[in-house]
Every structure is written in structure tokens, then in C-alpha cells.
């Protein structure tokens, strides 16, 4: 008997295995475990294949065995996008104001880990093009089928409505005084109608399932894509060999890409097509994060809904990360920022009960309830997760001193917040996120990541590697095919960049040089400081990534009536002019000395020789308050028709956008008569202007600029 049972089990196991491995998708999944890269942890069926020729597709794009390079670029773009937003509001390193700024960099680097594991676009061969997504391309066929089902559903619904009407009539009749026979008949009729309604309702539910459930979930979600999904110029079916660029969707097909933009909540990226660009969508996602981050960090003392951000010594920065994500995930209401906090109170309550029970147990005065609490939670509090306990002590003023597995608590966090919390622990404390796993250990970006986490943990501001990331050009080399061992160098000046290989960049050394040469002698000829790299500090496995070209940097003086001084101090006698004396021209400057002295930059401009005071006119050099000097970088737009810095006046109110091609709204507007510096003009259908406002805000506006 035993032998027979064993035999049957064995046969069944073999059959199951055959069936399992004969399923191509499963087989491929198992076989590729050892070689698959992180985007392949998601099933192929949630990747949509894109038309390779679509102009909006832009990297970084992950390719097989290329995850390190991909991750370097994603990290770089995230950090640069975050720096661009937070620096102007939160970064005053000379006055020790940097913790909130660093926290935003951390938030930007961490949130896409939670959202998408940093996946946006990948390139795969046809084997990994799931035919399930062909449904999108065959949208119209599907639409006809669904329309038929909907018609059937509508018919049933009409029947149900009619039965309900009859039922209502029977009810009214029943209330009247009637003979027993009539009442009996009415009851029978009511029962019949109820039964019919029930049956039809069930059928309607089944039809609903057909429309929105199972394989049709894809169709149902795709109907929200509006203007994007129906376009065969964007999506292609998996019916040919070759390689496909593929875009990641969520499992329910409602959210897309590295920042998991929800198509209903944030239709902008779909309307604009920026969802097809890893670079642009990172920028838009980080902007959305910053909206809440800035509000929460700024107003936590004055807004009653933001009280969870108040720590003992000011802002609780880790709660700020969590609250920012809560807003990102659930909407930007201030009331939603602290939605995660209730569970912590609950946890603290349980912990207090537990410690009280432990005390009573040891003193022999424990009640039955105390024993129950002790038995229930003792194992949990004794289990070991140091990272979690560190975080909890940050939260709860050191009152929790045991090691806690939060998963075992009844008052666990709302599911979404709990998952985010776990990912934050993985990223911040355990340091085993995908960014940690896939950034090459010797890369500048990995060291910058470590630097950033250490900075937030210890409230320091070490910048050696982060500053290198900020001056690296991740933009122009996104999609270059990388050959193993090849250093990434720009096409036009590769020699120059090769010479920098494995060396820390000069401008970074300048900032970290313990004794920088500071030339504060007034009226000396302009000196452009040259820094010699002293030592090879960083070895990046790819060699140095291309730095942003110094030549493309444009510095201008923002705002009206800027004082020009011949020494770096605020006194009345050292003023040698004002920008209002310069005939309304845009004042472009070179920074003579990158060191900020007393809040001032020493700058040179040919326009200064027009000043009446010889103190500044003689050498065209003056000291300007550093806040008024803004760096503007020219973009590489193929349609660019002119690039002359000049003033323009707004002829009709416009929104300032992040880029031309109807980029996202930046939150700023310009009204009639506002004066702007025009950096460049691009014709994209209509003219678009790359502008800087008088207060130094940079962006793009749609026509409505009259050049002066």
C-alpha cells in the first residue's frame, strides 16, 4: 500500500513538472534566473514594446548585462533633478544649512526604488516580448468585443430596472388592505421578481468581470491611455524577430514607468509623451515629489496637518521622506502628509504595555492580561532587526529599546505605507536596495550614494563624490552603446576627457581643497583660477564620465538694480555701480574666483567698463552678492534657431514650463509686461522661448515673448 502511494505521488510529481516546464514562460523564467538582470524580475507581460523610431523615446535604457551603467545614469539624473529643485531653497553650506537639502536628494534616490525598482525602459529581444501586450495593438478588435458585452449588459440592466419597477408596484399594493388571497399572490409575485433581480444582477456582475477582469484588465486600463495607447506609432505587437525597447507598466496597467505615474491622476506625461523618456519622466517625478517635500518641510510648524514632521530638535527628516511619499502616493493634500503616523502611536502603545507586562512578570505581580500580552509579543520584541529599531528610536524619542519585527503587530501600517517603510529601511539602514546592489562598488555614483546616506544619518555634508555626480553629463551619453572596457567620452573633445580619466574633477577639488587659493586683492586683473588635480582619488570602472562642458555655462546677474562693489563687504563706500547703470542689457559674467567671500563672488564682465567708477571699470571686475549670480546652461535643441542672450517682454500671460514641447508646469507664471532674459528660441510648431525670470527662475514659455 505504502509503495503504491509513493508511486502515485512520484508519477504525479513528474507529470506536474512536465506540465510546468512545458510552459514556455515559466521555463524561460527559471532558466534565466542566473543571468537575468533586475528589470527581468518583473514579468514580460507588463512591458509594452515600443516603436523604435518614435522620436520621444529617450534613455537611459537598460540593456542586458548593462545594469551597472544604467544604474549610474539613473542615479545621476535623479540626484541632478533633485539638486536643481532643492538647492535654491535649502542649501546654504557655509552656514550649515544642508540637512533638508540632503534629505530631498535621498528622497529622490529612494522613491523610485519603492515605485519601480528603478526600471523604466529596457531593451530585449523578441523572446521577451509578451504576446499579452499585443492586446494593446489589437485595441480596436478588443474594443468591438467589449462593446458587444457592454450592450448585453445594458439590456440586462434595463430588465432589472423593469423588474424593480414592478416590485415597487407590488410593494405599494401590498401595503393596501387586500384580501388574504391577494396578499398571498402579491407575496409570490414579489418573491419571483426578487429572484429574477438576483439572477440578472449576478449575470451583470459576470459581464462586468468580463469587461474589466482577467485578460481584459489590460484593455480596461488601456482605455485610459487616451491618445497614447491607440497609436501604432508608439506601441508595436510582438510578431517579429529582433530587439524591442520596452516600457514598464504596473501589474494592473494603471501606472507607468520608473516613477509609476498614474494615468488618471497625472495625465500630463501621457499627453505630452514625456512618459517615453526616462530622462524627462525622472525630472517630472522628482518635481512632483518636491512639491510636497517643500511644503511639508517649510510649513511643519505652522500647519496643523503636518505635525508628524516635528521632531524633538526641529524637523524629523525621516518622517519627511515618508510624508513626502504619502503625498506622492495618495495626493498632495496637506491632510494626507501624515497618514502613516497613526500606526506608530499604536506600536508605541503596544510596546508600553509589553514593557509594563515584563516589569510585572519579574516582580511577580502580573495579571492574566499581562501574561497574555507578554506571551503575545515577547518573541517579536526579542527578534532581531537592528535597522528597524534604529528607525523607531528616531521616531519615538529613544523610548523603544528592544528589537522589533513590526510585521507581527496587529496595528500594522496601512499596506502601502508599510511597504514604503520597509523599502526605506532597506535603502537607508540595511543599504541593500537595488541601487546598492547594482551600482558598481568602485563607481563614483556608488560612493556618492554612500556619502549621501552618511550625510543624512550623521547630519554632515561631505561632498567629494556627490559634487562629481552633479557636474557629470548624464544627459548626452544616455543611449550610447557601451562596449566593455570603453571609457565614455564625448565625441567632440575626447582627448580632453580621456586625460581626466580616473581623476577627480578640478572644480570638485576646488571646493574641497583645504586651503584654496583665495584672491581677494581688489582691482587686480581678472584671474581665472586653474586647479591642478593633486592625486588620483577615484577609480571608476568605466573611466571618468564626461563632465558638463564649462563652455556651455552661462552666468548672468538676476534681478533688478544689483549693486556692484570693489570689495567683498556691505559698506556704502565700496559701491562702484549698479546694474541699472548698464543700459538695460543682460549682464553676463565670468566668475573670476569660485570661492564665495563674505557672500560675494568676484566676477568679470565686459559691460563693467561702461561704469562711471574707475574702481570697477578699470579691469571690468566687481564683487556681486553670490545669490544674484545664476548659472544657466544652454540646452541642445535640434530645432534651435538662435542663441543670443537678450531681454524680452511678456506680451500675454503664460505658464513657465520645464521644457518646450509643452513640458510640465513649473508652478510659476509670467504676466504681461514681465521682463525676462531669453536664452534661446526653439520653433516647435510655434516658437518656444528658454527664459530666465528677473528673480532667476529658468524655464520655457510658449510664444508671447516680444524680444527687445
Amino acid at each position, binding site marked *: 500500500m505504502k509503495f503504491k502511494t509513493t508511486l502515485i505521488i512520484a508519477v504525479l510529481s513528474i507529470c506536474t513538472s512536465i506540465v510546468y516546464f512545458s510552459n514556455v514562460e515559466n521555463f524561460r523564467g527559471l532558466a534565466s534566473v542566473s543571468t537575468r538582470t533586475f528589470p527581468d524580475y518583473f514579468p514580460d507581460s507588463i512591458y509594452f514594446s515600443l516603436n523604435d523610431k518614435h522620436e520621444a523615446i529617450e534613455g537611459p535604457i537598460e540593456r542586458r548585462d548593462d545594469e551597472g551603467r544604467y544604474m549610474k545614469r539613473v542615479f545621476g539624473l535623479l540626484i541632478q533633478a533633485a539638486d536643481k529643485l532643492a538647492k535654491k531653497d535649502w542649501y546654504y553650506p557655509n552656514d550649515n544649512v544642508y540637512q533638508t537639502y540632503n534629505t530631498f536628494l535621498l528622497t529622490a534616490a529612494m522613491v523610485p526604488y519603492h515605485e519601480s525598482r528603478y526600471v523604466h525602459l529596457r531593451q530585449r529581444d523578441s523572446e521577451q516580448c509578451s504576446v499579452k501586450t499585443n492586446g494593446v495593438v489589437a485595441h480596436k478588435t478588443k474594443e468591438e468585443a467589449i462593446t458587444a458585452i457592454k450592450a448585453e449588459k445594458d439590456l440586462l440592466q434595463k430588465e432589472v430596472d423593469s423588474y424593480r419597477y414592478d416590485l*415597487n408596484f407590488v410593494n405599494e399594493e401590498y401595503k393596501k388592505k387586500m384580501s388574504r388571497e391577494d396578499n398571498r399572490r402579491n407575496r409570490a409575485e414579489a418573491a419571483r421578481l426578487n429572484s429574477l433581480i438576483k439572477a440578472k444582477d449576478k449575470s451583470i456582475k459576470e459581464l462586468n468581470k468580463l469587461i474589466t477582469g482577467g485578460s481584459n484588465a489590460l484593455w480596461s486600463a488601456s482605455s485610459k491611455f487616451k491618445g497614447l495607447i491607440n497609436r501604432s506609432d508608439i506601441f508595436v505587437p510582438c510578431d517579429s524577430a529582433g530587439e524591442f525597447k520596452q516600457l514598464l507598466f504596473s501589474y494592473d496597467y494603471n501606472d507607468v514607468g520608473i516613477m509609476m505615474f498614474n494615468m488618471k*491622476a497625472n495625465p500630463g506625461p501621457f499627453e505630452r509623451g514625456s512618459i517615453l523618456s526616462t530622462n524627462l519622466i525622472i525630472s517630472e517625478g522628482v518635481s512632483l515629489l518636491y512639491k510636497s517635500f517643500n511644503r511639508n518641510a517649510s*510649513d511643519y510648524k505652522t500647519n496643523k496637518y503636518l505635525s508628524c514632521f516635528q521632531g524633538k530638535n526641529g*524637523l524629523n527628516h525621516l518622517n519627511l521622506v515618508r510624508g513626502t511619499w504619502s503625498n506622492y502616493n495618495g495626493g498632495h493634500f496637506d491632510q494626507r502628509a501624515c497618514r502613516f503616523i497613526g500606526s506608530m502611536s499604536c506600536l508605541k502603545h503596544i510596546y508600553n504595555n509589553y514593557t509594563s507586562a515584563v516589569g510585572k512578570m519579574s516582580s511577580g505581580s502580573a495579571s492574566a492580561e499581562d501574561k497574555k500580552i507578554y506571551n503575545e509579543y515577547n518573541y517579536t520584541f526579542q527578534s532581531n532587526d537592528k535597522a528597524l529599531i534604529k528607525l523607531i528610536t528616531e521616531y519615538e524619542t529613544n523610548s523603544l529599546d528592544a528589537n522589533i519585527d513590526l510585521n507581527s503587530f496587529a496595528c500594522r501600517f496601512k499596506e502601502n505605507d508599510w511597504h514604503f517603510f520597509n523599502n526605506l529601511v532597506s535603502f537607508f539602514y540595511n543599504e541593500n536596495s537595488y541601487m546598492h546592489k547594482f551600482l558598481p562598488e568602485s563607481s563614483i555614483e556608488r560612493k556618492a550614494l554612500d556619502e549621501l546616506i552618511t550625510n543624512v544619518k550623521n547630519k554632515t555634508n561631505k561632498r567629494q563624490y556627490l559634487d562629481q555626480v552633479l557636474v557629470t553629463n548624464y544627459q548626452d551619453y544616455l543611449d550610447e552603446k557601451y562596449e566593455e572596457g570603453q571609457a565614455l567620452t564625448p565625441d567632440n573633445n575626447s582627448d580632453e576627457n580621456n586625460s581626466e580619466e580616473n581623476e577627480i574633477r578640478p572644480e570638485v577639488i576646488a571646493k574641497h581643497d583645504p586651503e584654496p587659493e583665495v584672491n581677494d586683492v581688489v582691482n587686480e586683473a581678472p584671474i581665472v583660477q586653474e586647479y591642478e588635480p593633486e592625486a588620483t582619488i577615484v577609480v571608476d570602472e568605466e573611466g571618468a564620465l564626461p563632465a558638463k562642458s564649462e563652455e556651455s555655462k552661462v552666468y548672468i546677474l538676476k534681478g533688478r538694480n544689483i549693486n556692484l562693489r570693489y570689495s567683498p563687504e556691505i559698506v556704502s563706500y565700496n559701491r562702484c555701480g549698479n546694474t541699472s547703470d548698464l543700459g538695460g542689457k543682460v549682464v553676463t559674467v565670468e566668475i573670476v574666483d569660485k570661492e564665495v567671500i563674505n557672500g560675494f563672488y568676484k566676477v568679470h564682465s565686459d559691460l563693467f567698463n561702461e561704469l562711471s567708477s574707475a574702481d570697477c571699470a578699470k579691469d571690468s571686475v566687481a564683487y556681486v552678492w553670490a545669490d544674484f549670480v545664476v548659472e544657466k546652461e544652454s540646452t541642445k535643441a535640434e530645432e534651435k534657431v538662435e542663441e543670443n542672450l537678450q531681454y524680452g517682454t511678456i506680451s500675454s*500671460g503664460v505658464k513657465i514650463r520645464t521644457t518646450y514641447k509643452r513640458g510640465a508646469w513649473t*508652478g510659476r507664471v509670467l504676466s504681461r509686461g514681465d521682463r525676462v532674459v531669453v536664452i534661446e528660441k526653439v520653433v516647435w510648431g510655434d516658437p518656444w522661448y528658454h527664459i530666465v525670470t528677473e528673480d532667476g527662475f529658468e524655464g520655457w514659455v510658449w510664444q508671447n515673448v516680444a524680444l527687445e
Partner: protein
Amino acid sequence: MKKFFSLVLILGITALLYMKRDIPIPQDTDLRTLEMKESENKKIQDHVSSEVDQSIVAKINDRVDDQSSAKSDGLSTDDIADVVKVVDNLSDCLLKKTCQDFKENERYYDPNEGSYHRSLVKSLSFLRERAQYNDDVTITPEQLQKVMAISNDEVQAEGLLLADALNSSQLVAERCGDFTNSNILNVLTLIDKRKDNTQLMNCLNKFIQRGSSMALYDVAEFLSSSAVDVQIAAQTKKTYCPLLASKDESYKRVGLKYRSVMEKYDLTCP
């Protein structure tokens, strides 16, 4: 025997009550409530539908901002009046928090903001662009004020631009206190052009009094980039100078930002 009769009596009364019950069939209450709600909804929907041509609403709602379509949309003056009605209806329901009562508003629902602002923004943006080419955008000051009272960054920004396009920036100055912190720079920049120091000071004070470090920071940013009267800048010293010594980063940065105001207007802190 007594017990038996008592039992019969109780059973009799129960049977009588059962026969006389008002709602004999389960679900009847639900059904009636449902019917009532449906009829009410119908009434509300009919009310709205009768006011505006829904195809115009769809046209506006589906359009993309910033495109040269406002002059070639082929909409008549009556159509534009319908768009104004949409603006007014949505402003009303947003302020009264009743938008969810209008079934047709579902298409306007913006889960990210948790409300119905998107369509309002699109309608306002359309009117603003239309006003550039035609003079048939007739929105009343009261209607514009309602728009500006809605606490939403993008709605208010569009309201501000529309007011400017219709030469009604005075309304923005009068209602500056309604604007969100995110719009402070937009509002102050617009008001500054009116060259009315009393209005400007009034609005600066309203923003400063909020106490929010975001509001304070943006006011300092405005002062440092514009060229207001020195007296106006000097009046802010009392609030800003103490912030230089703040230990809280969110306020300390405000003090540090204020140094550029001090440099520009030759102000000193004690």
C-alpha cells in the same frame, strides 16, 4: 389553561402586527431610497445639462494647453459664454464642496488633487488664450474672485493670468490673501507692476503674517529680485532679522535668504 390563552393572545397579536406591517418585502427600504436618490441626481444633472452645451465642455476638457487653437477653435461667442458657465458651476461646487453631487463631474475628478480642478484649469486656460484674440470673454469680477478663492495652485495661477489678460489685476491685489503659498511670487510680481505701494505692502504683510517659512522665503526672494521702495523693504526687518539666529533650518534659510535683501537695500540687522 391561562398560559395557553396567553400564548394564543400573544400569537394573535404578533400575527396581526405581521399582517399590518408597512414594509413586507425585504430590500424595499433600500429600493425606495435608491429611487429617491436617482431622481434627485437626475434633477441635478438635468439642471446642469440645461445650462451648457456639453459638447463644448468636452472640447475644452480634451484640449491641450499652449497651442495655437484658441483663435481657430471655431467656437462662437455663445460657446464662450458656455465655458464661462462651466467655470462658474465648477467654482461654485468646489467652494461648496458639492461637486460629487454632479454625476457628470466624474470626468473632471482629479484623484491627485482629490478634487475637480482639472477641467476648471483647462477652461480658464482656454479663456485666457481666447482673450488674446477676441474680446468676447465676459466673466464678471465676482466670478473671477470665486476662482481665486479656490485653494489650488494651478486654478489660482490661471485665475491670476485671466485677470491680467482682462485688465483686472486689481482683483488679484484685492484678493491676494486668498492665494496659496506656492503662488506668492506670481502674485507679488503682478502686483508690483501696479506701482501701488499700499496694495503691495498690504499683500506683503498678509503673506508674512502666515508665518510659514515658505511664504517668508518667497517674500524675501521677491524683495531681493525686484526693486521696491527702500521703506517697504525696511519694514520687513522686524520679522526677518531674528530669523538669522534661528536654529531651525527651515527658518534659518529664510534669514540667510534675507541677506540678499539687506545687501540690495542697504539694510542692517541689529
